C-alpha cells in the first residue's frame, strides 16, 4: 500500500497532523491565492452515498488549488447500478484522475479500494468506519478554539456508528487530550475503537449523562442519533431526547466552551444555540475547504508536500 492514501485517522502521526494544519492555516488566509499549486490536476469524486459538505468542500478545494474534479454522480446513474464491483470502478477511475475521494456504505471499502489503485485515495467515509478528512478539519477547529494539548473534550451522541467520532478519537491519542464519551449504553464506542484507544494509552472515560462532565469541557462534539438505530419511535424519542442540547443545557458549561458538530444536524442542537458564542459548527464546516486544500496539496505532491 502507498503511504499517500488517507484511509483512517490511525495512520496519522502528530507530525502528519501538524503538517496539514500548518498548511491549512496558510491556505485559510487567502484561499483564492493558491491556484498555481496544482494546475490541471483532476480529482475523481466517487460518492456511493449522499454528501453535501464533504463532496462540495473537496470540489472547492481542488478548484482553489488550480485543479478540477470529475464526479461519478449518483449511484443510480452509474455502472454500479449494473452490478459493477467497487474494485473495477476505482481501477477505471484511476485512469482518469490524479486522485480519488471515495465514500462508500461498506466498512473497509476505502482500504480495499486502495489496494487496487496507485493514485492517492482519500476515505471520505466508509459506513460506520472512518472519516479521516473530517477529523483533520475537526482538529483544525479544536486547535483554533481550545488548542490540541491539555484539552478536555466531550463527544456525545451515536458513538457506535459515528465514523467521525471513531476517527477523531484515534487522532486525539496523538495529543494530551482527556476524552469523555457520552452516549446511551446501546450506542457506546464499538469494541474495535475501545481496543485501539486502550492500546494507545488514551485518557478515556465513558458516561451516560452529560451533566456531570459538562463543566470541565473545553469542547463538546455533538453527533446525531439516528432514528433507524432504534427498534421503535418511542424508544428513539426517549433516548435521543436525553442527548439534545439547548441554551439551558449550556448554562452549566464553561463560558468559552466550543460546541462542534460534523453536520448535518436534525434536532440535537436547538437552533437557539446558533446565536451563542459557543456555536462553532458552521465555522467548523467552513474549515473543510482550507484543510482539504492542505490535504490534497500534500497527497498530490506524493505524500510529503513542498
Amino acid at each position: 500500500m502507498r503511504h499517500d492514501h488517507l484511509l483512517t485517522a490511525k495512520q496519522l502521526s502528530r507530525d502528519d497532523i501538524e503538517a496539514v494544519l500548518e498548511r491549512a492555516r496558510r491556505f485559510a488566509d487567502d484561499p483564492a491565492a493558491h491556484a498555481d499549486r496544482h494546475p490541471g490536476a483532476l480529482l475523481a469524486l466517487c460518492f456511493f452515498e449522499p454528501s453535501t459538505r464533504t463532496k462540495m468542500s473537496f470540489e472547492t478545494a481542488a478548484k482553489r488549488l488550480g485543479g478540477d474534479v470529475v464526479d461519478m454522480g449518483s449511484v443510480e446513474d452509474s455502472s454500479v447500478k449494473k452490478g459493477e464491483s467497487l474494485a473495477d470502478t476505482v481501477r477505471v477511475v484511476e485512469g482518469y484522475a490524479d486522485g480519488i475521494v471515495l465514500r462508500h456504505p461498506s466498512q473497509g471499502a476505502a482500504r480495499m479500494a486502495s489496494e487496487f489503485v496507485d493514485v492517492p485515495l482519500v476515505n471520505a467515509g466508509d459506513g460506520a468506519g472512518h472519516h479521516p478528512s473530517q477529523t483533520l478539519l475537526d482538529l483544525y477547529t479544536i486547535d483554533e478554539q481550545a488548542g490540541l494539548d491539555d484539552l478536555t473534550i466531550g463527544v456525545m451522541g451515536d458513538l457506535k456508528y459515528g465514523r467521525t467520532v471513531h476517527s477523531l478519537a484515534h487522532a486525539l491519542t496523538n495529543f494530551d487530550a482527556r476524552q469523555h464519551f457520552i452516549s446511551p449504553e446501546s450506542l457506546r464506542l464499538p469494541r474495535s475503537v475501545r481496543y485501539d484507544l486502550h492500546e494507545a494509552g488514551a485518557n478515556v472515560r465513558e458516561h451516560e449523562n452529560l451533566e456531570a462532565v459538562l463543566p470541565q469541557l473545553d469542547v463538546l462534539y455533538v453527533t446525531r442519533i439516528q432514528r433507524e438505530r432504534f427498534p421503535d419511535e418511542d424508544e428513539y424519542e426517549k433516548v435521543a431526547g436525553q442527548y439534545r442540547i439547548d441554551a439551558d443545557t449550556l448554562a452549566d458549561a464553561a463560558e468559552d466552551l466550543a460546541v462542534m458538530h460534523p453536520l448535518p444536524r436534525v434536532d440535537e442542537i436547538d437552533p437557539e444555540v446558533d446565536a451563542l458564542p459557543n456555536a462553532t459548527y458552521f465555522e467548523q464546516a467552513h474549515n473543510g475547504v482550507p484543510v482539504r486544500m492542505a490535504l490534497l496539496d500534500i497527497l498530490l505532491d506524493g505524500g510529503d508536500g513542498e
Partner: protein
Amino acid sequence: MKDTELRVSKISSGTVIDHVPAGEALHVLAILGIDGSGGETVSLGMNVPSDRMGEKDIVKVEGREMSQAELDVLSLIAPDATVNIVRDYDVVEKKQIAPPEAVTGLLSCPNRHCITNAGEPVETRFDVIDAGVRCAYCETIVREDITDHLAV
C-alpha cells in the same frame, strides 16, 4: 497412553498433530484444507483420554509433511497443539506452533457491513492480535468462537 495407541495407530510417515482441544479435530482439518480430495490417508482421534488435557483430539495425516506456515494457523484454535513430523515410523522433527501475524482467506468477517461481504474480488485477511483476530478491512475484532467464522 496405551489406550491411545490402540485407538489411533502409528503412521509410517507424515504429520501428527496432538493435544488438539477435544472437539476441534474437524476444524483442524478444515483449516489445513484437508477434505480427503488430496488422497491422503487421515486418521482422527476425538475425545481421547489425556493426562494433561482430560480429553483431546489427535489428527494424523499420512504422506504429507506440513510446513511451519500451514501449522501456525492452527494456533488460532489449538494453541497448545504439538506437532511431530514422522519418517519411517520415527519422529524426525517436533514443531512448535506460533501465532501467525495474519491469516488470509481462512475466516469470513462476521460484520455483514464489511466490504469483504459485499461480493468484491478480495480475500478476507485477519490480523492476529493478543486476544483474537481482527479484520484488516473493517477492523471488527473476533475474540470468541473463531471457528464459527471459518470460510473453508
